């Protein structure tokens, strides 16, 4: 029998996956392997309704993402709707599919911030990783437009074996592009990234060296650019507080309107997800079985259950616990208190210079 549930905490962020269409094929994409189709995409009016409900629920920031949000012909209307719902708007883009003209209209519609991904510090390698010739050049051009318009720019650099040794050059590139923030986003192994794990995994030495470089760059560039880093958790002793805790800080809406506690949640069996076409967003947040499944700490097993860090990292990532141990309630084996911790080092060693399986 369930104890009377306490009112769920209010989310701060909404990841709006407007489409799974994307011209690039990045092998580390966090979208699911089963990409949602164009025919199933929510229309403009439904997104507008979702944004209003999100603001009422307490969401402050929306990340307009995908796939490639620029693939939506109604992107300006969608951004306008998010802005008018009172949300701070972030465009998360590859730059491919956002013309200068569209950027101008997005700016007028109230877009607050743009994040552009870079795949490496030079064109040949960057385009090879993205699986799209000309991507690097287009990203530079759009970055220049963003800064010309005075919109804050973040460069997102997904780091893995092919580019991790270039981290200094990638930060220098972000600076040259006028970014005030750069995210050193070590690959997280879900979706397409999990499929390409052997090709993407860096060595421990590479990770440690990159961490030293990032620390030095932070000091060197203090006041010019903020360098945020996502932990490469296969080499960690403690797990990340994945999404800030299940059903606590953020929620995802997929292109077809399914609401997920995180982008990999569908990999966990026996979770029931609700759709915005049938339920309001606040109803889903508070009551959908998928959101209740791992909210709080009642679901925990040992060692998480009596661990002093339980409310700090929530036992790590449920999806990763399921992927690596077969049990979504298990301690994320990234945690050195997990009885399965040795498995993570074995998986990290299983590197192979195979071709990428591009996201298609």
């Amino acid at each position, binding site marked *: 029998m369930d104890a009377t549930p306490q009112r769920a905490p*209010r989310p*701060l962020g909404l990841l709006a996956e407007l489409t799974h269409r994307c011209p690039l094929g990045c092998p580390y994409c966090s979208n699911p392997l089963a990409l949602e189709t164009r025919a199933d995409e929510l229309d403009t009016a439904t997104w507008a309704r979702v944004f209003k409900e999100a*603001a*009422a*629920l*307490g969401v*402050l*920031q929306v990340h307009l993402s995908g796939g490639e949000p620029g693939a939506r012909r109604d992107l300006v209307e969608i951004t306008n709707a998010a802005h008018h719902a*009172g949300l*701070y708007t*972030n465009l998360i883009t590859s730059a491919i599919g956002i013309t200068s003209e569209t950027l101008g209209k997005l700016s007028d519609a109230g877009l*607050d*911030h743009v*994040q552009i991904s870079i795949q490496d510090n030079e064109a040949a390698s960057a385009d090879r990783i993205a699986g799209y010739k000309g991507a690097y050049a287009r990203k530079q051009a759009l970055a220049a437009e963003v800064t010309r318009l*005075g*919109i*804050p720019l*973040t460069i997102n650099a997904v780091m893995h074996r092919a580019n991790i040794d270039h981290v200094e050059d990638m930060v220098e590139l972000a600076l040259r592009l006028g970014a*005030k*923030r750069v995210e050193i986003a070590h690959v997280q192994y879900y979706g397409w990234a999990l499929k390409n794990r052997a090709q993407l995994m860096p060595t421990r030495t590479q990770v440690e060296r990159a961490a030293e470089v990032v620390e030095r760059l932070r000091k060197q560039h203090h006041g010019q650019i903020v360098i*945020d880093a996502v932990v490469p958790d296969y080499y960690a002793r403690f797990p990340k507080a994945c999404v800030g805790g299940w059903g606590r800080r953020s929620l995802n809406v997929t292109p077809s309107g399914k609401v997920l506690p995180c982008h990999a949640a569908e990999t966990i069996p026996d979770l029931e997800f609700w759709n915005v076409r049938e339920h309001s967003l606040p109803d889903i947040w508070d009551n959908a079985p998928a959101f209740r499944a791992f909210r709080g700490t009642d679901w925990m097993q040992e060692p998480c259950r009596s661990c002093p860090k339980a409310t700090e990292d929530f036992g790590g990532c449920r999806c990763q616990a399921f992927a690596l141990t077969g049990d979504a309630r298990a301690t994320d084996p990234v945690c050195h208190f997990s009885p399965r911790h040795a498995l993570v080092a074995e998986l990290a060693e299983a590197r192979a210079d195979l071709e990428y399986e591009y996201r298609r």
Partner: protein
Amino acid sequence: MIAADAKPKLPRGVRLTHNEAQGGWVLLAPERVFKAEGPAHEIIKRCTGEATVSEIVDDLAKTFNAPRERIMIDVSNMLAGLVEKRLMEV
């Protein structure tokens, strides 16, 4: 130190927003959220790019019937902190 004739304003990409469910006023920036209740809200909302620091201090002193010198210190400290975090332009 912030000059008395400076005209502080929120830079593009920093927003002062009210959200009922989150308990009131917040200051939003890329990947950052700050509570901005009470005195913080009163100061930030007056930073329009039109009013000088001196005029903002005068207005606060009058509105809240408080000593000008105290307000000047509080406003200077708050603005310096926001400028350092890149949440305010002067």
